[in-house]
């Protein structure tokens, strides 16, 4: 346990490098504030396939291939792929990697999947079990709506606290060598459930999980929010981000100026009708890859805490009246 720090954290002896990051998104994301930053924008939601599910896998495969390419590597040099998504039995990822012929770990951590993938990827690389790993997460608005909300053509209103599932795939290549920002530490979250049942207010369910992992990160490393240029949460949305700031303030941490949320950054809530913001595994993955990773590479951000968040219910538990267990994982990334 010599590299385990405090209660929930680990530090890396030879901090793994994020050698490349790639983002492939759908048309709505390609219309949003980050439109000039994505690597590839699909012209339509089917992406040349004949179903939403196949389209998600196509996006996911392209995201991984693109990231490998940007890292200057070839697919056989990738020792492991760690990826996940929202669809039942994680089919978005498994069909995506079917033709890639690389060792694969399918992960599920809902919208925080990229955090789980990056943490485990760093463990593999720092543990000298791998030289290069690909960590990816995908989601698809139409596939998600169909799988666990309503058919697309059903008329109805979405509450203002609801979020919009991001269509896309974000992938990072983590390596033992090469140039790029380094992941120096990770804090793994616990399941936190503060009794929120409203599936249209996932930001409220996830905010306490984000607060919990942040507090443990700061305690484990004896750090303060001011030590970071940016604290970037996954998909809390405008409501959840507000709640996180309040919860942190109650514990004596002021994260106000430095706190960003990928769900808030990816869409323009006013013109794109996305209500609380973006969500889904792709939300934090593509926003990190397109907005924050380049800033780390350019040195405009020196120390960043990346905190993807996830709500881990499904439609059966929601029908049974269960509350929403949530999780968040923190990664310290330094330029």
């Amino acid at each position: 346990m010599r590299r385990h720090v405090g209660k929930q954290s680990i530090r890396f002896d030879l901090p793994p490098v994020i050698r490349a990051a790639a983002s492939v998104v759908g048309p709505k994301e390609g219309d949003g504030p980050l439109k000039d930053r994505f690597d590839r924008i699909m012209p339509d939601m089917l992406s040349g396939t004949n179903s939403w599910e196949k389209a998600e896998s196509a996006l996911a495969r392209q995201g991984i291939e693109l990231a490998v390419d940007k890292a200057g590597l070839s697919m056989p040099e990738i020792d492991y792929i760690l990826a996940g998504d929202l669809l039942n039995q994680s089919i978005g990822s498994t069909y995506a990697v079917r033709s890639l012929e690389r060792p694969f770990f399918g992960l599920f951590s809902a919208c925080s999947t990229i955090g789980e993938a990056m943490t485990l990827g760093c463990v593999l690389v720092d543990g000298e079990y791998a030289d290069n790993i690909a960590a990816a997460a995908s989601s698809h608005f139409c596939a998600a709506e169909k799988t666990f909300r309503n058919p697309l053509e059903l008329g109805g209103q979405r509450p203002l606290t609801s979020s919009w599932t991001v269509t896309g795939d974000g992938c990072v290549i983590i390596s033992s060598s090469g140039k790029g920002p380094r992941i120096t530490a990770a804090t793994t979250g616990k399941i936190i459930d503060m009794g929120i049942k409203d599936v249209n207010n996932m930001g409220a369910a996830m905010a306490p999980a984000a607060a919990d992992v942040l507090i443990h990160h700061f305690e484990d490393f004896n750090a303060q929010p001011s030590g970071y240029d940016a604290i970037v949460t996954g998909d809390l949305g405008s409501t959840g981000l507000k709640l996180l700031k309040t919860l942190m303030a109650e514990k004596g941490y002021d994260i106000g100026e430095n706190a960003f949320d990928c769900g808030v950054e990816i869409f323009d809530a006013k013109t794109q009708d996305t209500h609380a913001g973006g969500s889904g595994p792709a939300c934090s993955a593509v926003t990190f890859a397109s907005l924050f990773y380049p800033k780390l590479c350019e040195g405009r951000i020196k120390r960043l805490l990346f905190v993807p968040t996830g709500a881990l219910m499904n439609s059966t538990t929601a029908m049974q009246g269960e509350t929403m267990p949530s999780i968040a994982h923190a990664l310290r990334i330094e330029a």
Partner: protein
Amino acid sequence: MDYVKAFAVGGLICVIGQIVLDKTKLTSARILVIFVVAGCVLGGLGVYEKLVEFAGAGASVPLPGFGNLLAKGVKKEIDENGFIGVLTGGFKSMAAGVAAAMLFSFLASLIFTAKEK
């Protein structure tokens, strides 16, 4: 005048649904079930038919009108055919609307695909 009444009564029934939707976070499916059952009970009591006489389509087109239709049908069947009408009346009275919805929805599935949003 019958248009004004239809608009006002039909609009108001929808407003009741909207208030329930905004205030209670019930899903639309639940609200529809509640409306149909409520319409059926009010129809059984003979109250809803008075609203239909007053507002015409304003009362018959919203889903409580569908419930009222079921209540009317079940009474008529019992009057004509006795006890078996308890089971056959409701289904018979909704047959035209539901069969039409099945037919058109099936045809729609042949022609259309869900559009991306």
